[in-house]
């Protein structure tokens, strides 16, 4: 039993935090808000993340990455959430890279997989990944990614396809948070695009959903932390009735309640990442616990932060809304807290 990140992991996280504090300011996030139709996410910031090794963290070493796992990536996803990073780090580097690495490890003969992995590690390829359990929905990032990993029904059940975004049309779907770059891919599955089918495809879809729960959960932790921190700072500064509003018990208890939720959401999320890397039998349930906790912690942090900010927080000028909107979108993405609680209950009954 050793439930902690390594010093190396923590040092890397701190380095990434420093870089993002500089390169992903709220002004930068606002710029992404204002350019929702941008065709690519290949910003200089993304190149920096690639240079640091972040984008290829789980890419096998043979393809230019570090060959690490979700446990290594989770602290960085938390940092991405903390600054509301507009680029698709979870989709590209946690979901797509892990899925492609699985296919690579399973010896899938597809010649495109290696180069894709290399491009992910090199920071020249971003990927959107469809939630195979929810067919027909717009895909996050589809409106800006280079590669789409999509699901279609084939003769042997579901198939996972790799589709070059440049070769098809993507119909944009506006989101509350424009950086989500939602889109509906208009495409026809073909033997040329199929990557895996049958039982392996089902396993890939399920593993991807579990990883997404944890990866998005980690982003939500960072968002929650940011919102609570900025609100506590505001509460120390803002004076009403002759003292800082943070001295009022009502304000204290709002923020304390959100902080307690966040404190408990953290180990839950880290433990789920470990369970997925480890292939534990209850990894899927652990992933659901992580997403449910993280979604609830972040939506509560959002509610409380807006209340503490008051009318200021309701304005476009205040940065808070950038975090609120990302939180609301991500809390429903890849399953809401309620969806995951239903999954948890099902799995507990099966076990019984």
């Amino acid at each position, binding site marked *: 039993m050793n439930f902690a990140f390594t010093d190396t992991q923590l040092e890397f996280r701190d380095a990434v935090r420093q870089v993002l504090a500089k390169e992903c300011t709220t002004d930068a996030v606002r710029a992404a808000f204002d350019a929702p139709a941008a065709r690519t996410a290949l910003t200089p910031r993304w190149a920096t993340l690639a240079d640091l090794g972040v984008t290829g963290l789980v890419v096998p070493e043979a393809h230019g990455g570090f060959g690490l796992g979700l446990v290594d990536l989770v602290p960085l996803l938390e940092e991405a959430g903390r600054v509301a990073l507009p680029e698709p780090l979870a989709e590209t580097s946690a979901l797509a890279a892990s899925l492609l690495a699985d296919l690579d490890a399973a010896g899938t003969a597809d010649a495109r997989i290696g180069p894709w992995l290399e491009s992910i590690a090199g920071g020249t390829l971003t990927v959107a990944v469809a939630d195979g359990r929810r067919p027909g929905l717009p895909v996050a990032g589809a409106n800006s990614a280079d590669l789409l990993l999509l699901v279609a029904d084939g003769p042997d059940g579901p198939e996972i396809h790799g589709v070059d975004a440049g070769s098809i049309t993507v119909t944009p779907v*506006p989101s*509350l948070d424009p950086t989500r770059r939602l889109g509906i891919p208009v495409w026809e599955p073909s033997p040329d695009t199929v990557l895996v089918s049958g039982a392996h495809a089902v396993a890939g879809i399920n593993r991807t959903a579990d990883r997404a729960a944890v990866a998005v959960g980690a982003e939500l932790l960072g968002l929650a932390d940011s919102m609570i921190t900025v609100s506590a700072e505001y509460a120390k500064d803002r004076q*009403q*009735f002759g003292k800082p509003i943070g001295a009022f018990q009502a304000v204290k208890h709002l923020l304390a309640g959100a902080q307690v939720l966040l404190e408990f959401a953290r180990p839950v999320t880290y433990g789920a990442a470990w369970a997925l890397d480890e292939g534990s039998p209850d990894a899927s349930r652990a992933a659901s616990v992580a997403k449910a906790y993280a979604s609830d912690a972040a939506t509560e942090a959002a509610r409380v932060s807006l209340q503490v900010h008051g009318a200021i927080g309701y*304005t*476009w000028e205040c940065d808070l809304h950038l975090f609120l909107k990302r939180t609301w*979108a991500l809390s*429903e993405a890849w399953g809401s807290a309620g969806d995951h609680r239903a999954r948890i209950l099902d799995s507990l009954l099966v076990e019984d």
Partner: protein
Amino acid sequence: MDRPMDLHYTDAQEAFREEARAWLSAHAPAPRSLPSLDTADGFEAHRAWEAELAADRWSVVSWPEEFGGRGVGILEWLVFEEEYWRAQAPLRVSQNGVFLLAPTMFEFGTDAQKERFLPPMASAQEIWCQGWSEPDAGSDLAGIRSRARRSDDEGGWVLSGQKTWASRGAFAEWCFGLFRTDPEAERHRGLTYFLIDMATPGVTVRPIPQIDGETGFAELFFEDVFVPDDLVLGEVGKGWNVAMATAGSERGLSLRSPARYSRAADRLVALYAERLASDPERARRSGDAVAQAWMDAEAYRLNTLWTATRVLAGGSVGAEASANKIHWSQTDLAIHRAALDLLGPEAEFHGDGIDAPWLDGFLFALAGPIYAGTNEIQRNVVAERMLGLPRG
């Protein structure tokens, strides 16, 4: 009063309902067909709609006929609101004036003021915004610092300072606001209630875009703005008392009619029924929340009728207005949260051709626990005035 309890509307009230329903059915624009009232075009479109309402005396039914109303009581107003929301008619661009200023003006205004201001308010020729909060006086309204300096020569006051969160402030013709006329006085004392023509030299308006990107409110800057004596509402130095009457009516009965929530709750039930067919598992998980939200709207309706009966019998609304405000703001959020839960991954779809009334409604509802006195302040009021707990 010894009439037995009776929750039926009278025949006359039902006839009034029929008349309102018929008129609205003939005149109301199609639901959500006007542009947002937070845009310049939308503002004018809403103003035009209210002029149409006013032409047939439906804009301020509870006002005396001389000012454009029908002289009906609060119950008839509630009936009208039920029909207005049932018809999904537009939001009221004149609501600050009609619901916040007008009750105060009826109580404190001179005859000349009423004659001058009420008719164009009723017809939406003149739209009012509220100059209440200041950057450093939000929850703590008594901390107002904007000042009015006496000018005996000119026969009036010279205003300076800054106001914020003025809904409709970007487009309004008039502003009602509180300024400190006695710089020596502290907190609630020495404030005066002014009516200000926004076209007066020295008034600058800075629109403030909201969380949804629209310009719901504005910051107002006053630099030596002259206001003549006849535009003081109530007594000089007694602005706090005058203002509190308005605050009471804002949080009390008149700003948020139950029909608004009943209508939203009915739409929520319809959404539930639809999703029960298309996504039964998710829908069932939301069943309890849907029922609770519907109940909350129903409780608000009944509580309003209960309070209205008391008011008609000569009673008053005190700290119950604070309980009311907590309830409606929570109800509005509960309705919209339940709807977004039902929508699940579709909840984030927004704008540009996608009709997202639930998401828009959610963003609007978010402001409820904040404005018109935060719910934290209201809970203090409930605890101190209804339960007698000591001040902090």
